[in-house]
């Protein structure tokens, strides 16, 4: 299983295949020993360190000798999902606003030529029994509007385009 572990801006690629562990491609003789509760021991080669490991909001808080840091661990699947999110953000940077989920268009406040701020609502979409305000990713001017109220849309459907200005 491949993991990416990020800690204070540094990233490590760790692969665990049964007893074989590699760190950034190099094999490492390591073992995590459970001591009980949040107490563990990490053996790397001949060096053993006491560590505490507790779940943090977005990862694991690791502690040793009073020093603590949060490590975010991603496996391949969660990394792919995160990268997909980044792609969606890249698309939106170009000014094309798409529906992030299938739903019903309730209200369209964007009109061609309207000046909008970054984060300003363009289309109100009802999905999963909730109202979702779809926002402009940039400050600029609405160039085109492709939907109208009462229309159902699929995920990825084009809603509007905004040309960045200022």
């Amino acid at each position, binding site marked *: 299983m491949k993991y990416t*572990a990020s800690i204070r801006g540094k990233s*490590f690629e*760790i692969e665990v295949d049964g007893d074989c562990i590699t760190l950034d491609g190099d094999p490492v003789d390591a073992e995590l020993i459970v001591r009980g509760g949040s107490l563990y021991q990490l053996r790397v080669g001949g060096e053993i360190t006491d560590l505490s490991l507790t779940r943090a909001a977005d990862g*694991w808080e690791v502690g040793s*000798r*009073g020093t*603590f840091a949060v490590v975010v661990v991603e496996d391949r699947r969660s990394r792919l999902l995160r990268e997909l999110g980044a792609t969606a953000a890249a698309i939106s940077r170009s000014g094309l606003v798409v529906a992030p989920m299938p739903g019903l268009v309730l209200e369209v406040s964007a009109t061609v030529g309207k000046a909008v701020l970054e984060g300003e609502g363009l289309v109100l979409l009802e999905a999963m029994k909730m109202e979702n305000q779809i926002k402009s990713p940039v400050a600029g001017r609405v160039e085109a509007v492709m939907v109208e109220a009462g229309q159902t849309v699929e995920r990825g459907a084009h809603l509007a385009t905004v040309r960045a200005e200022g």
Partner: protein
Amino acid sequence: MAPLRRILIANRGEIAVRIIRTCRAEGLEVVVVYSEADQSEPHVKLADQAIPIGKAPAAESYLNIANIIDAARISGADAIHPGYGFLAERADFAAAVIDAGLTFVGPSPDVMRSMGVKTEARKIMEAAGVPVVPGNSDPLESAAEGRRVAEAVGLPVLLKAAAGGGGKGMRLVTSMDDLEPEFERATSEAEKSFGDGSVYIERYIDRPRHVEIQLLADGRGNVRQLGERECSIQRRHQKLIEEAPSPAVDGELRGALGRAACSAALAVGYQGAGTVEFLLAPDGKFYFLEMNTRIQVEHPITEMIFGIDLVRWQLKIASGQELDLPEHLVSRGHAIECRIIAEDPTQDFMPSPGVIEYLEIPTGPGVRWDGGVVEGCAVGLYYDPLIAKLVVWGEDREQAIGRMRVALDELTIVGIKTSQPFHRSVMRDPGFCSGSYHTGFVAESADAWCELSDADSMHFALAAALVHKQDSHRPPSAATRGAKQNLWTAQARREALRNWQQ
């Protein structure tokens, strides 16, 4: 005075445990008091008798004079030891103890009162020929008077609360225009914090070192000084690391400080263990700061270099024995103390309350742990965040530092954040290791203790990846246990944050 038989300790935590040990070694029976929050605390278990005295908040328990005197009556104690903090420097408490026919382990209420009002203390010291910081020794009548004093003494000055102390109730004035508004502010803050709005002025001494002298006096004219302690590693006037002897003090200065301190003790008719605090200016001049009429937190480092038990001497003096210590005591070696407090030094020393899940205490030659906690103890919600003092002795300063590094590496505390990484960093700091530092050290230190080494980065990342893999196979019950603790910690943190932000 009759020998003491049964003693009540009006305190908790590490100092209660430390006093209990000496009392029991001396063959005394020990009674302790505890609040509702402290039922499972070590000091309760170590005593011969434990009496509950009220709800968790200190005002309802450890500061409740009536309840404590009652506890003494119920238990048949003949003396009360106040420790430090809480009621230790409250003259009204000392008077109540004496009125109840008990022995108070400490000086007389009159001495406590006069040393507690800083303007009174200054006057007494001046009369005794002890150098004081240039300033005035009576409460200022007006901002105009303050201006006159500040002009005479020279800016910058500190406006200090006469009923304050321990670094509290001080305001810095760097320009004459600020004097009037700061005087108003200082007066109202002093009124609010200490119930006494009296304010006086002392010249601000830049980059001072905080050096204090330990005294023992038997009230019969015998006074002994037990050398100095260097306490300049402080944050917002709260000490974090102390050492004895001071790297800044040579034999001649030690003699002068000692003589000044003894004059102070004789001038007030001191009885018991006490400490005279001085500011040591960069030019080598020293000035009286305040006198503490109790045993101090950092007393162990003096004990280690003199091979003495100060609490034992407190008990002897309290029972009327003469101070038969040689006139010129010579210390041996060097001692350092690191205060282990439940605060996170990487988050500006934010309180870190919680439950201690796991505790591994360092030991070995020259290593002393004065602690008040064990696994399972809840820390930092109602009381002082000091959980233990780690003290080491070495034949010289270098060995002491080496031993402290090792001890701090061995110390393992799981469940709360503590000052441990701060101490580990300071023990490797070139400024500290050279012995050349002053009270601005922590503020000027660029938070070196927040850094994560490359080795730690790698180990932490590896451990997290390995536990992540294990965790996906773990039953959910382990996670729930963690969640319960987080609810407690979250509430405690909210309370502590409120206090910290004030």
